[in-house]
Structure formats: C-alpha cells, structure tokens
C-alpha cells in the first residue's frame, strides 16, 4: 500500500469517525430532548392531577357556591403560582358578570386592582370576563397592557387568563387570574383550566340542588315567602340583636278578613292567586319606605292559610310599628283582580313589640296572634297593639275554656227553665230551657260568659247534646206528672254550629226515642244568623225536625235580617220578638209600629208570637194590645230549676 493510499485511508477513517461522532452526538441530543419533553409532560400531568384533586376536595367540602369558587381560586393560584385570582359571578336578572367576594390576593400591591375590579361589572363581550361570557371558552391575555379589550386599569397586573363555569346549561361564573408579568399563552394550562371549570360546574349544580331543597324546607311553596321554620329562626336572631343594640323588633300578625269566602265562592285557584298577590304587596311595602318611617331589615312569612307574619327590625318605636301596619292595610286597599273581577280585601293585624331576650319566640307569636284576634273582633281592617291586658284576657278565656270542658264531663252544667205564659190569663203554656254553669268556686256562671266561648269550639256541640237530653228527660217527667197541664213544649236553643251538623235530626230523634218524649213536646229555638250560615243543611234539617213533630221557633226576631223569605223557606212555628223592642214598649218610644207589623205578619203566616223580656205590667199590657199572645220575662217568672217551676204549674199561673 502506498503512503498516499495509507494517508487517504487514514483520512477516510477519520472522516468516518467524525461522522459517527456527530451521529452519536445528535442522537444523544435527541434522546435528551425526548427525556426533557417527557419529564415536562409528566410534570404538567402531575400538576394537573394535584390541581384537579385540590379543586375536587375543596368543592366537596363546600356547602355554598361562594366557598366552592373560593376553593377553586385558591387552588389554581397555588398550582400556577399566580398571585391574583377572582371569581366573577353571573347576575341572574341582567345576565351580567358582577364581582364576587371570592378572591385570592398574595400581596398588598394588588389592592388597587382589587378595588378597581370590585367597581366593575362586565356585559357580554366586554373585557376579559365578558369575552369568556361571550364565547363560553377559556381565554388568555399575554399582556393586559397591550390588549385593547382589557378595560380595567392594569394596576400591577400583566399576564391574565380566565375560564367559565357552566351549570345546568348556563354560564354561572368566570374565574380570572393575574400575574404581574406578561406570560405567553399556555394552551395546555388553559385546557386544564377548562377541565377545572367543568368540574366546578358539576359542584355548582350539586350545591344549587341542595340549596333548592333547603329553600323548599324553609319557604312557603305557594308564595315563596319564609315559612314558620325559617321565620322562627329569623325572629330568634332578631331578638338577640334587639337585646344587644337595645332596640325593638316588631312582629305583625296579619290575617285576611273573610278569606274563606274567596275560597268558597271563587275556588281554591282564586284563593291561591289572592295569597300570592297579597304576598307581593307585602313585599313591596317592606322593601319601600315612606316619608314618615323607613323600615329596617324585615322578613315576611306565610304560616299557612291566610296568615302572614312580618318581622321588622330597628323600627325604633311603637309608632313605627303602627305606621307599618297602616301601610300594609293601605297597600291592600287597591282591589285585587280575581276571575276578571275586582275584589276588596282587608286584613286584621296584631302587633307586638319585642325589646330583647325577655320575650321568647313562641310567646311573641302567641301575643301577636292574640292581638290579631282582638283586632278582628273590632271588625275588618283593624289593627291592635298587643298589651298585657289583652294577654291576660286571652289567657283567662283559654283557662275558662279548659275549665268548661272539664265542667261538662264533671256534670257542673244545670238547666234552668223560664216559663212562657199566655197574655190572655197568665197561665204557663211552655218553658224555655236555659243552660247554667254551677262552678264549684265561682258559683253560678251566667251563659254570656261561657256560651260564646263554647261556640268558638266544638264544645258547643257537646253542651247542645247534653242540654237536649236533659230538657227532654225533664219534659218526660213533667208529662208523666202533670199530663195535659205540663208546661210543654220545652224550648231548647240550638246554635249555628249544631244546626250545621247534617246529623242533627238523627240526634234529636234518638233523644226523643230514648226519653220517650213526643216530638210536639220539644221546640228548637234558633237565630236568623244560624239560618244563613249555610244554605243547604238547615232547611233540610228543619224540615226533618218538623217531620218529627218538633216545633221551630225563631229567636231574637227583629234584630237580624228579619227576612220574609226566611219565614217562607223554613218551617217556622213561632217568632220571639227581641227584648230590645219589648223593653221600650210603654215608654213612648216608637217601637209599637214595628211590633204591630211583626204580629200582623205572623198572624198572616199563621205563626205564634212571643214577646221576650217583659219586665213590667205595662209592657205586658202593651204587648197584648199589639197582638202578642204569649210572653216571657221577669215580670212573670225568672229562669229557675225545675223544682221551683213546679209549684207554679200546680197553681196554674206564676203570680
């Protein structure tokens, strides 16, 4: 081999070696780059997982949407090392994005940016949040200083990105993040943020569902107002605040007058419509204020039926509470349109002022209720301020009702009988049975003190049944004892509630059978009001009673509607002219025309007429002269136990 060949070979070998070296170096570089990329990708994936996990665990611990957003903002800032994060939330009415309280701020240098943000609302397409709102996609701004679409002052921030949170198909929030340096868009990071947004969306959906359930548990389904549960809670808080501040909380118990009529005549649909309309007007009153008073924090609740309760804090005085009650009544003045017709609605309002923790919730609600009932007693559209006397009265009534209930069972009720006499000769023709309560401590309690009370509850049915039986037993004894001279029929008062019972005729028939009394020896006394309470039942009942031979007497005639149609429609046997007309007979007051008209009409219809409350001989004479055949009153005999009546029967006449 020549030296040239050798040299040539050596140089070739060198070139080959150098090429091999370059190849090796290139493949090493490539391997390193692959390793770097893989490491980097692994790092990103790991960060992504850590971040997702942080968001998931933060949101699982959140019971409110605010907390979930706050957790996500913190997690994203921790993961990206970006110092500023904030959540804009969608305002449901305008659809705009409004700043929230969910912030992550690492140092005071961003305070100015935060306060600028807190003053800024974004509509669709405007600014970074508005851009996300418009596209529904995450967005990145490398440098807000150079972005024409960034509307807030930069105030120390440069790089920015934002992503949306969708729930139930709606964009609910936009989370935005800032860093003081410009940063090039990072697609991978933005993709992760999109994922975070979807995760948050699921959390928001869950929380909204939970909130809805909680809302249903604490609100009235018909009106959306607070229910009793929530109201009690608010009231407790208000009382604690009132105690701390030494201020007043006012409680208004509002009950619509004659709401039942609306339900009965227009149906429950209209009733519900009215309740919703009333709740809206109440809300309007409480939200506004007038020149005299400005209402404090308030809660309006519906307790069911037509009962509304308002809690108002910081009213300052009784006058403020009264002003509020009057504003509520004024707000109801304008007619409600139901079924295309105007309806006038009034409310009775009970007011209680609470000054602090000396009053507890149940007691206050009861006091407001008592005041409301007192207002209702004074007629529709009134208010009443609760005072202790009212409560005492209510408590006394409650005590009386309890005692009366026991009295019926303990046999403390008695029947007294008042003779009804013939004005022609003065002989006792019949008696009216009157119930008395022989109280072991209070003695004889007059009927005026317990019958109205009994009429408010089912107690009147019990008392009525007892009276009926007792009176019939007495009638049977007298029939046996006196034969044709017995002072029968015995009249028994029947209340509206009893009359409304469809089974009344059956009850009466049973009592007659049990006591062996003839129907004709019993008379039922009822008032005109009882007749009009309900249209169907009384007429049928009265005809059924009539069929048993029982006499029907219309009591207190002349004070009610005195309607001729009643006299025609119902099988009436006799009228009792109310004592208010009889009282003035013979004193020159011109009641005589009325009495004469009544007797003339009764005579024409074939009805007997009894003058009630005859206290003097003059009244008796006048009544007789005006056409009354019968009379009842102290002038002849007071109501008395049966044994005291019996001597009068033997004699044949009371005096």
């Amino acid at each position: 081999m020549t030296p040239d060949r050798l040299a040539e070979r050596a140089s070739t070998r060198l070139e080959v070696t150098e090429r091999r070296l370059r190849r090796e170096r290139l493949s090493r570089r490539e391997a390193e780059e692959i390793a770097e990329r893989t490491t980097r990708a692994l790092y990103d994936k790991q960060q992504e997982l850590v971040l997702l996990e942080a968001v998931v665990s933060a949101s699982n611990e959140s019971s409110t949407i605010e907390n979930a957003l706050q957790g996500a903002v913190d997690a994203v800032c921790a993961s990206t090392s970006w110092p500023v994060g904030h959540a804009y939330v969608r305002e449901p009415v305008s659809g705009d994005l409004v700043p929230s309280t969910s912030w992550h701020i690492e140092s005071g240098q961003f305070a100015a940016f935060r306060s600028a943000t807190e003053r800024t609302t974004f509509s669709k397409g405007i600014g970074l949040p508005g851009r996300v709102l418009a596209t529904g996609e995450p967005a990145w701004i490398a440098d807000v200083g150079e972005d024409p679409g960034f509307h807030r002052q930069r105030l120390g921030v440069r790089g920015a990105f934002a992503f949306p949170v969708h729930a139930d198909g709606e964009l609910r929030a936009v989370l935005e993040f800032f860093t003081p340096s410009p940063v090039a868009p990072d697609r991978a990071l933005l993709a992760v943020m999109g994922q975070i947004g979807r995760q948050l969306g699921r959390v928001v959906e869950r929380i909204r569902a939970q909130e809805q359930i909680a809302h249903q548990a604490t609100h009235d389904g018909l009106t959306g107002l607070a229910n009793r549960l929530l109201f009690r809670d608010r009231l407790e808080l208000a009382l604690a605040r009132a105690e701390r501040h030494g201020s007043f909380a006012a409680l208004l118990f509002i009950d619509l007058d004659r709401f039942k009529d609306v339900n009965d005549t227009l149906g429950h649909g209209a009733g519900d419509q009215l309740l919703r309309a009333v709740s809206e007007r109440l809300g309007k009153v409480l939200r506004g204020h007038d020149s005299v008073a400005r209402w404090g924090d308030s809660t309006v609740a519906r307790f069911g039926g037509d009962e509304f309760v308002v809690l108002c804090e910081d009213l300052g005085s009784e006058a403020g509470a009264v002003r509020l009650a009057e504003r509520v009544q004024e707000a109801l003045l304008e007619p409600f349109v139901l079924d295309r017709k105007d309806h006038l609605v009034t409310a009775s309002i009970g007011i209680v002022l609470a000054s602090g923790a000396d009053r507890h919730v149940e007691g206050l609600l009861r006091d407001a209720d008592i005041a409301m009932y007192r207002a209702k007693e004074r007629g529709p559209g009134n208010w009443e301020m609760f005072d202790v006397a009212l409560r005492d009265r209510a408590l006394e009534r409650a005590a009386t009702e309890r005692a009366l209930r026991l009295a019926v069972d303990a046999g403390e009720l008695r029947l007294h009988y008042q003779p009804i006499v013939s004005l022609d000769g003065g002989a006792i023709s019949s008696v009216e049975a009157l119930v008395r309560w022989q109280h072991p401590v209070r003695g004889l309690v007059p009927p005026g003190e317990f019958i109205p009370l009994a009429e408010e509850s089912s107690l009147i049915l019990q008392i009525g049944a007892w009276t009926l039986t007792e009176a019939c037993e007495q009638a049977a004894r007298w029939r046996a004892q006196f034969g044709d001279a017995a002072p029968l029929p015995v009249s028994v008062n029947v209340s509206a509630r009893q009359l409304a019972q469809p089974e009344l005729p059956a009850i009466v028939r049973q009592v007659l059978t049990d006591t062996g009394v003839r129907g004709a020896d019993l008379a039922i006394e009822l008032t005109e009001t009882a007749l009009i309470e309900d249209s169907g039942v009384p007429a049928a009942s009265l005809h059924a009673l009539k069929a048993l031979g029982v006499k029907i007497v219309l009591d207190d005639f002349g004070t009610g509607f005195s309607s001729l149609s009643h006299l025609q429609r119902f099988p009436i046997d006799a009228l009792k002219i109310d004592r208010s007309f009889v009282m003035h007979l013979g004193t020159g007051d011109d009641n005589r025309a009325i009495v004469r008209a009544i007797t003339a009409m009764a005579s024409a219809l074939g009805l007997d007429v009894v003058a009630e409350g005859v206290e003097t001989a003059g009244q008796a004479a006048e009544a007789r002269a005006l056409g009354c055949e019968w009379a009842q009153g102290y002038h002849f005999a007071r109501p008395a136990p049966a044994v005291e009546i019996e001597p009068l029967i033997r004699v044949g006449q009371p005096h």
Partner: protein
Amino acid sequence: MKGVVFNLLEQLVSRDYGEDTWDALLDASGLDGSYTSLGSYPDEDLAKLVRAAADALATPADDVVTWFGRSALPLFAVRYPQLFTPHRSTRSFVLTLNDIIHPEVRKLYPGADVPEFDFDVRDELLVMGYHSPRKLCAFAEGLLLGAADHFGERLTIEQPLCMKRGDEHCVLEIAFAA
C-alpha cells in the same frame, strides 16, 4: 449542577473555539466529559472547566463565566421562545425570573437548584439581589447582558456587594441606557 449546563458550555466552546478546545479543557480539568442534560454533576466540575479556560485565555474566571451567560442566552431564546415573546424589554423579562422562568426550569429539570433573586427599584436602577451558594453572580450578569442584546437594549451593571468579597449575598445594580 445539571448536565444541561455542561452541554451548553460544550456547545458554545466548540462553536467559538473549536471542538479540540473543549477536549483540551476536559484534559486540563481531568474530567471525562460525559454529561447528559438531565443528570446532576458536581459543581466543582464547572469550576474546574472555568479555571482551565481562564488559564488558557489568560482572563479572569468571572469574565469566562460572564461570556458563558451572555452567549447562552440566545440559545435559551431559541429553545424556550414562550418565555421571551410576551416581553418587550429586559426589565420586564428579568422580573419573571422567580415566578415564571425558574419554575419552568424546575419543571424540565426536576431537582434543579436555581438561585433566588430579589428585586428593588432605586433611582432608575433595577437592583437585583442574588442568593446562591454557587456564587455564580457572574453568570447572572452574563445572562442579563445577553437579555439586553436580545431586546436590543444597552445596560451597565455595578456590583456593590458580592459573596466572593465576603458579603452575605450579591447585589447587581442594573442601569438601562436611555
């Protein structure tokens, strides 16, 4: 010290002074010279190479390190453009060292022990504190100069404090030419 630093140094030395020079430096330092970018190697290796280069060029070691930093920066700009594109100035770029650039370095090279910086602005000067037991403030200075080259700016750097002079940390005062 991450292997990528040695790779960069090899690349720059070979480019500017020839591949043989790199071999000569390795021989002079008594190093075998196999560095892979993700591996970690003794800090002392870099110091040996720098000393060898300083001896060969008869220049101060810090000047070698500064040259290394200034020359390395354009390579970074090619490899990691996303760290540069959002910026229009050296100042803006440099201010992202702690928050963006070094976190990125750690993502690529897990375990990389990067220095800490603090920043202050005083009389038109950007005052940058350098904290690292490696005492490579000269490398930082080189990178700063390289960044200025990249953004087409001129700057001068004073170093009132330096760990190599016994101070607790190094301070670089950077003045940007108007």
